[in-house]
């Protein structure tokens, strides 16, 4: 297999694009896709400070490295979930990566915040992935606003976005369908959220991480065994295999023709947000969902005879 651009031996086959690249031409392709996403959706303006959410996985670390190479002012944010079986390893990968590349890093420790994920799993009767995601998003936004970042970047790739869009569509969840996309503008106490890798597949970010020697935290979360997104990704992998290009077509088509309609519906429904009475984060319920989780965990932990 030859590189489409320079005819050297290829290392990265991309059936979705009916092509293959050598590592040098793939690097240029990858950068081009990130630049195209930033330019097309106005993700980052000159001079803005970017907070990059770092889990330790291939996507977030690849995003951090690529944005720094493009000259953006980036700082990493890692939320240490406090899961004994996985969090220390993930945090070590993130810290090692940032030190190696001379990148700034901020860490939030959920144990210190009184809301470690094992306690949430033990005391709260709701899907743990949903609660964990909510807590992480809360801290991403809170740190971004409190520390003066204009932009919050996450490493969501095309497969993540298509799986999420698919799940939202299966439920016809107008609220989520109204604002899913690579850019969610700052408003109502939320920093601007961006997804510069949305044009790149999971395979492509994995190739980027490997070719750049990024050491990643690849062990699955011990609590994520039943995550529905993994099943949706498999369905889409089948579809993409039979019909290359389906993913980006589905997602781009939604951005152009689906999202505006759902945004109009949500505009008419109108949800009013106000600062949380406890932490100041935006909420429609007086006390935000994460503070309510914290209160419930504290109460149940205090009443747990095993924790006395």
């Amino acid at each position, binding site marked *: 297999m030859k590189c489409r651009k320079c005819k050297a031996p290829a290392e990265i086959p991309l059936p979705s694009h009916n092509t293959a690249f050598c590592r040098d031409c793939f690097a240029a392709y990858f950068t081009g896709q990130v630049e195209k996403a930033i330019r097309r959706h106005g993700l980052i303006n000159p001079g803005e400070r970017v907070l990059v959410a770092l889990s330790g996985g291939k996507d977030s670390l690849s995003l951090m490295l690529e944005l720094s190479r493009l000259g953006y002012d980036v700082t990493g944010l890692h939320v240490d979930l406090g899961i004994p079986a996985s969090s220390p390893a993930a945090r070590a990968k993130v810290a090692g990566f940032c030190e190696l590349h001379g990148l700034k890093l901020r860490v939030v420790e959920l144990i210190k915040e009184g809301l470690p994920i094992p306690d949430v799993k033990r005391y709260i009767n709701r899907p743990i992935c949903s609660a964990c995601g909510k807590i992480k998003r809360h801290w991403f936004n809170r740190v971004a606003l409190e520390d003066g970042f204009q932009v919050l970047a996450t490493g969501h790739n095309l497969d993540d976005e298509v799986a999420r869009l698919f799940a939202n569509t299966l439920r016809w969840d107008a609220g989520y369908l109204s604002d899913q996309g690579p850019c969610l503008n700052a408003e109502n106490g939320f920093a601007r959220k961006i997804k510069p890798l949305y044009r790149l597949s999971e395979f492509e970010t994995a190739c980027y991480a490997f070719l750049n020697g990024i050491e990643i935290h690849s062990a699955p979360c011990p609590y994520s065994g039943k995550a529905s997104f993994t099943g949706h*990704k498999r369905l889409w992998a089948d579809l993409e295999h039979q019909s290359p290009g389906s993913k980006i077509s589905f997602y781009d088509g939604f951005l152009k023709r689906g999202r505006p309609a759902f945004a109009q519906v949500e505009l008419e429904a109108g949800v009013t947000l106000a600062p949380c009475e406890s932490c100041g984060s935006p909420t429609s319920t007086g006390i935000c969902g994460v503070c309510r989780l914290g209160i419930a965990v504290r109460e149940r932990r205090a009443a747990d005879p095993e924790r006395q």
Partner: protein
Amino acid sequence: MITVFVEPDNETHTFERHNTVLMLQKRLGLRVNDALIIRGGTLLTPDDRLIDGDEIRVRKVISRG
């Protein structure tokens, strides 16, 4: 003999013979972009040939939440 180490499952397989990467992928039930196929510091494409003594690392790419 070809030795194949699969991540993140931490499984090791040995195969008597596989002519190409594509044959190995089919044997493991993987499509072209389901996993990185690594030999040394190089990524392999489906048409690359495997030879006796190869040590291959298969790194699955689907993240799980």
